[in-house]
């Protein structure tokens, strides 16, 4: 088992195999995304019951929470593929790490805006230095740092490796920043009203809607990431013979 996994890992490392493999996978992911997204939206807007406390405004949770999870998930994935790129010097891993950054930043931005939209009716202000929103804000800064560093260095390969290293530094600091902010938040205002109603005691159909929406965001990320990496492969491997053949037919 380990042998095939290792072979598969190295095979996937070659831009050409990755290009073909992702090309085959994208249609399936796309279909899965459309289904889960439609089903998820239906569940979250129509089926899930109204929240006895917050009324209808809690439905923002079905886009806010999945986006927050995606923002975190993508950062960790970026750091992991960055580590692979740095240690095994794999071009594809570099491209995956760099392609992750803008998508993750987009999801984090959505989380921040929907969080503030959700908080407005409850807190009366657009921005509340709530622990989770604050650490989301710093997650966005970490993303902007990685993207800024990549854009600032001319040589593509060197830029990718520097950005990958920064992503590693970021992922190590992520929990430290998060728990410092959470601790700081309890220190200053005492526990604010729990913005995110805990998943555990949610009504089953609420939980179902949330999980479907989360699945939809995962499929969406799959399509978006693979397609962005394919674009980068074409740009960076434009000299390669297999790309020239691709252009001919």
């Amino acid at each position, binding site marked *: 088992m380990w042998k095939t996994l290792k072979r598969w890992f190295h095979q996937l490392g070659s831009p050409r195999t990755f290009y073909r493999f992702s090309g085959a996978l994208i249609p399936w992911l796309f279909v899965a995304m459309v289904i889960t997204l439609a089903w998820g939206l239906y569940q979250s807007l129509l089926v899930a019951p109204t929240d006895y406390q917050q009324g209808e405004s809690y439905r923002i949770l079905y886009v806010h929470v999945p986006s927050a999870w995606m923002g975190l998930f993508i950062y960790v994935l970026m750091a992991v593929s960055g580590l692979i790129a*740095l240690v095994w010097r794999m071009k594809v891993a570099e491209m995956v790490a760099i392609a992750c950054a803008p998508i993750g930043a987009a999801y984090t931005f959505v989380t921040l805006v929907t969080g503030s939209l959700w908080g407005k009716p409850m807190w009366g202000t657009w921005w509340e230095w709530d622990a989770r929103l604050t650490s989301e804000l*710093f997650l966005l*800064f*970490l993303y*902007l*740092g990685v993207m*800024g*560093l990549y854009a*600032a*260095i001319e040589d593509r390969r*060197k830029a990718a*490796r*520097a950005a990958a*290293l*920064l992503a*590693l*530094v*970021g992922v*190590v*600091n992520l929990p*430290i*920043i998060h728990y*410092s*902010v959470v*601790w*700081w938040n309890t*220190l200053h205002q005492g526990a604010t009203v729990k913005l995110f109603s805990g998943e555990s005691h949610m009504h089953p159909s609420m939980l179902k809607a949330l999980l479907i929406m989360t699945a939809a965001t995962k499929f969406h990320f799959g399509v978006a990431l693979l397609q962005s990496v394919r674009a980068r492969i074409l740009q960076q491997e434009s000299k390669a013979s297999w790309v020239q053949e691709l252009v001919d037919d």
Partner: protein
Amino acid sequence: MNLLHILWSLIQRDLRLAWRSRGELLNPVFFLILVIALFPLGVGPEGKLLARIASGTVWVAALLATMLSLDLIFRSDVEDGSMEQMFVSQTPLSWIVLGKVITHWLVTGLPLVLLAPLLAILMHLPQPGLWALIQSLALGTPVLSLIGSVGVALTVGIRKGGMLLSLLVLPLYVPVLIFGTAAVENAIAGMSPAGPLLILAAMLLFALTLAPLTAAWALKVSLS
């Protein structure tokens, strides 16, 4: 392979260099006092209000002062080729980074710690908070230099890396700021500042072990 001797000669050299250009040496200190002086102008001179925001202001100003001087760590050695000689030597690069960070702290961090009493007066910081401020700055400023060295190692190859450096480094400074100010707030409120100070000490050890290695790796990547 007497690493301590090499480390000491590196620090000695950098301190002599810093002394030779001592004009810029005091910039972080002047910057700090200037920033602190802005707050009463902006927020109003009432002592009670200033005292309330004193610890936060001093810490944020210390953060910015350290960050502005991070460029000193590698910039000049990279530009005149000394960094190449350090690459080529058998001394592990992380050891060289450690030496440079120590010098940076001695040149910018330490003055901030020594300046704390003056800043406390300017900001009407309540008396019990002063000793905690000094302790927290003493533990926190080395962490700022260590984390900053990673950021500046990543941006040393970029011509106009200044703004980018702050974007990379400031988010990583958040935990130090939080626990630094918390120590002072605890002391002011009459509680013992030991808790946050111990956390700062833990961060110092964490940064001391990881930051030089990461910065050395970053230097290799950005200078290749």
